[in-house]
């Protein structure tokens, strides 16, 4: 093993490549639509597939929310970057660095007033320019205050 290996990146336990800033409490008035923007950060030097990857075998980034008094109307993913990597013939549709995912929630008129927490999961699969890492999930807890 060459001593140059000391320059090699750590390759095991590459969890938490993607993190989500803890969201502030969302005020949600029953009978309206509210929007939550998640601030997502991927570690420098890594990329993950966008919500619409370039290849059918690639795993898309996907945000899902657990059941709650609010209904998910739409999840809006950021515009993907088309990046060329040494291992890819064609540019790949990816996210890098900081990006935002927007969720539009419908708050039913019948939603009970009070505080609750909605759980979200971002499923992603990240790589750097030489290797890929097993698909992972970043969890997010969104505090919500529903008012009438």
């Amino acid at each position, binding site marked *: 093993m060459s001593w140059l290996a000391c320059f*090699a990146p750590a390759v095991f336990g590459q969890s938490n490549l993607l993190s989500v800033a803890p969201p502030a409490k969302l005020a949600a008035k029953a009978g309206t639509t509210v929007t939550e923007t998640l601030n997502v950060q991927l570690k420098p030097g890594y990329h993950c597939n966008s919500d619409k990857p370039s290849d059918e075998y690639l795993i898309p980034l996907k945000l899902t929310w657990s059941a709650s008094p609010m209904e998910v109307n739409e999840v809006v993913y950021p515009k993907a970057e088309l990046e060329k990597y040494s291992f890819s013939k064609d540019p790949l549709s990816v996210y890098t660095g900081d990006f935002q995912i927007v969720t539009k929630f419908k708050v039913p008129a019948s939603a009970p007033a009070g505080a609750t927490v909605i759980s979200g999961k971002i499923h992603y699969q990240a790589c750097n320019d030489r290797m890929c890492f097993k698909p992972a999930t970043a969890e997010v807890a969104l505090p919500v205050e529903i008012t009438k």
Partner: protein
Amino acid sequence: MNRSIVKIGVLLMVACGLGFLNGCGEVHADVKPQKDRHAAPDFALKDSTGKTLKLSDYRGKVVLLNFWATWCEPCQVEIPWFIEFEKTFKDRDFSVIGVSMDDDGWDSVKPFIAQQKINYPVVVANDDVSRKYGSIESLPTTFILDRSGRIAAMHIGLVSKSVYRNDIEHLIDKERGIEIIPATENRGGSAFELARLLRAGGLRAE
């Protein structure tokens, strides 16, 4: 003193840039001396044809054991190389074995094998195999096994085709005729031993 260090650093960077130093920019393990090799953990899994593939049945052959997944783009670069190696070296006691890490198993892997025209056996890893090999999280991860089924080299991430070729040719040609160690005398094989091997190779866990 400081200038000398800077000069050496600059020379190394230039050498790396020109590719003079094998291993620059790569997580790269050279073929280890025989005394430092440990047994590759054995496994028995069905291949894409339904036939049971037992790694220890490959004793007597040099084996390129490639952990990969259909969702791993760098893995897709290497697969045509491995197809070529299988063709080139198959009559010289050599075989490639692919171990897919796809969670959805054959649903993704079988169409991929057909699409890529993979000519070597592929199995789908289970938790046991993954654990035995140190919970592989980075792909591609490739082990080059000697004729005794011991890990002679390991490569994590995309390395150049010539790195694999050099390892294979070294084991096929330069170790031809060396006595094969019977399985019962083969040391190691546990995840613990493998972790020790990884540490000895200079790789570190985060």
